[in-house]
């Protein structure tokens, strides 16, 4: 009997042990807490603490604004301006930052059920805000004075159903192939206009003993940009491609010939090998390999990278003395660059008890002097969302790419619903030969189908 009892006890212990991993799955909150702990950043842990309803309600009553944002969206200059706002008005802006990967989950939890936990929050403008349901919870700002001073693209990106709901102090940036102009001039290299010329250029650079491209293919986000570069091709094949793809799960990426052909060329570039190593690109060999690009480009280990034009300013700030230019990715001989559609905006939670204070903050941030301060500090922004800002400076890469492109097209991820978050895996698979471009397309379409079905349920 004792032995049986022991067995039952032991079995129960095993079940509990196994169940311990499930405890986190029953509720989103513990998962988020775990992640915050794992990433280790104190500010992330603070963010979780700050999402305390009671505290926020009290703070609102005391003239405080609780602003929630992802960790890379608030810069030093934002905090400086918030301090200045507090000096002028006595209203404190408390910023709650969360890890990038967890932001959407945390924000969703925070806003659900008409909560007033946050007074303001940040989110991507354009279709991103629409598909996330932001118009349901955001205050209509159409009547605010600063609206008249916004650039047209910023008005469009932040408007839904005739109401402007987002406040943007970001900017439009452009993406293409960044190249070391100084190195190109020294070695008489020509900027390519067709895919064949691009591949020939890569071989020419290899002949000079240099790896042509830095490509952070091990990270989760970067290599996808090559796919977004095909947006102008899709727009050319079907000008209503956004409406077409967003209309139904039966309308697929597979229906676009240019998508299939273009992906084939990208596969050709990524999968080319020299021995067992990639032929045309390299990276620092870490899972998060983005940051290795600064050193690689600065040391001329590589001389090109697919990225955004403001990246040239980042290289300069990092001590790089070479000049950089940019050209549109000539996939299928494309000559049009893509734009990011305008970055992230601030929204006021319509359930906040502090709406007037939030509006006062936006009015303050939209003052000319503060806009100049903001854009002077944001060297990563190459255009402004407000008219006549003098301190915003385009990089040499921005100027170059705009001189080479037709009217840039907003990248597809900004407009097309349900973009598969595993795309980076398919691209890694294309690079190592385990995934074909056809697999890529069927996976992406399958994910969209699942999402359409899930939403329909």
């Amino acid at each position, binding site marked *: 009997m004792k032995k049986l009892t022991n067995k039952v006890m032991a079995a129960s212990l095993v079940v509990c042990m196994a169940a311990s*991993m*499930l405890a986190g799955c029953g509720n989103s909150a513990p998962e988020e807490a775990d992640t915050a702990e794992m990433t280790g950043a104190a500010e992330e842990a603070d963010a979780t603490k700050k999402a305390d309803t009671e505290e926020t309600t009290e703070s609102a009553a005391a003239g405080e604004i609780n602003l929630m944002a992802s960790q890379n969206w608030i810069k030093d200059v934002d905090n400086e301006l918030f301090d200045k706002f507090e000096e002028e008005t006595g209203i404190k802006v408390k910023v709650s930052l969360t890890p990038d*990967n967890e932001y959407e989950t945390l924000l969703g939890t925070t806003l659900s059920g008409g909560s007033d936990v946050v007074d303001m929050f940040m989110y991507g403008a354009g279709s991103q805000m629409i598909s996330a349901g932001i118009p349901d919870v955001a205050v209509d700002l159409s009547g605010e004075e600063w609206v008249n001073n916004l650039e047209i693209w910023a008005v469009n990106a932040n408007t839904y159903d005739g109401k402007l709901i987002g406040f943007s102090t970001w900017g439009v940036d452009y993406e293409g192939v960044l190249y070391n102009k100084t190195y190109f001039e020294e070695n008489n290299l020509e900027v390519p206009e067709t895919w064949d010329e691009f591949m020939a250029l890569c071989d020419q650079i290899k002949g000079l003993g240099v790896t042509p491209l830095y490509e952070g293919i091990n990270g989760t986000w970067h290599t996808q940009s090559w796919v977004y570069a095909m947006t102008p091709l899709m727009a050319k094949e079907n000008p209503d491609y956004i409406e077409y793809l967003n209309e139904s799960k039966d309308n697929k990426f597979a229906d676009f010939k240019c998508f299939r052909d273009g992906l084939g060329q990208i596969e050709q570039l990524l999968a080319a090998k020299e021995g067992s190593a990639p032929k045309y690109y390299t990276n620092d060999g870490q*899972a998060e390999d983005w940051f290795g690009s600064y050193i690689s480009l600065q040391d001329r280990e590589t001389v090109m990278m697919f990225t955004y034009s403001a990246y040239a300013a980042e290289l300069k700030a990092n001590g790089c003395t070479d000049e950089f230019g940019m050209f549109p990715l000539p996939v299928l001989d494309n000559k049009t660059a893509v734009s990011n559609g305008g970055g992230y905006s601030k929204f006021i939670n319509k359930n906040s008890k502090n709406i007037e204070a939030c509006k006062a903050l936006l009015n303050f941030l939209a003052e000319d002097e503060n806009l100049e301060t903001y854009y002077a500090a944001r060297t990563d922004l190459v255009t402004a969302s407000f008219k006549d800002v003098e301190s915003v400076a385009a990089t040499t890469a921005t100027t170059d790419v705009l001189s080479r492109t037709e009217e840039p097209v907003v990248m597809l991820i900004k407009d097309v619903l349900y973009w598969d978050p595993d795309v980076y895996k398919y691209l890694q698979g294309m690079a190592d030969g385990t995934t074909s471009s056809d697999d890529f397309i069927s996976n992406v379409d399958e994910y969209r189908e699942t999402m359409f079905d899930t939403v329909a349920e």
Partner: protein
Amino acid sequence: MYRKKIYKSYFTYPALFFYILLFIIPVILNFVYSFTNWNAIKMTGETVKFVGLDNYIKIFQNKELIRVIFRTLFFAAVTTFFKNIVGFLLALAFNEGLKTRNILRAIFFLPAMLSPLIIGLIFGSVFMKNGFANQLLIVLGFENLTRSWLTTKSTALGTTMFVEIWRQVGYHMVIYLAGLQLIDKTYYEAAAVDGANEMQQLIFITLPRIIPSLIINLLLSLSQGLKAFDIIFVLTGGGPSGSTELINTLVFREFGKKLYGMSSAYGVILFVITAVAGLLVLKLRDDQDE
């Protein structure tokens, strides 16, 4: 039996209450949610609807899952094997004899006390293209062996296993040490008098008496291996192209897609696998007892 010294059962109620509230109920909810389409695709309006076995059907139609399950089992088996072999050998070495054994015990136990994040960041640098591992290989004349260990498909899983073993081996060493300390010295003295050599003492005295420690270590290391997440997440994020994806990283990824019902179903599958593995180890112990 001193009945008066046994505390009343209601003393357990507060602990039981919190255990049920914070552990048992979330676990049960997880099972329930695995049969729903709970998702937050639309951020401001979550959806929960009962969908029966749909999530499980979708999961088992996914070819990748089978590979992930086998990879998880392989990861758990290999790390369990080496954690125990190396841990046991270290325990034998530091059990007695060495003057510096206390310092060495502390040194080998230290990685178990470090955050997986810190370990991940350190080893991310060690195994990068120009990292310490490759520099060492070059110095030793093995330049042809250098590679990006964590981002090359053929070496990524093995490298993460190495880091996981390095991280936990000291922890298992301590459990074996505790077991070794409990073995009565007179057994060894009697065996020595009878002419048994060290190997015979190890096989006929040490090993049979270390079984309880072995069972505990097997249970713990299997559980750690099957539930591995943090070290993988930091070192490779499941890549390159899914070659280090384990069930728990898959659960996290589904959660990131805001498909909470599907993520719960993956969690239930891992629960079943872990429970079966644990029960098998206990069966081993029971057979040993008999």
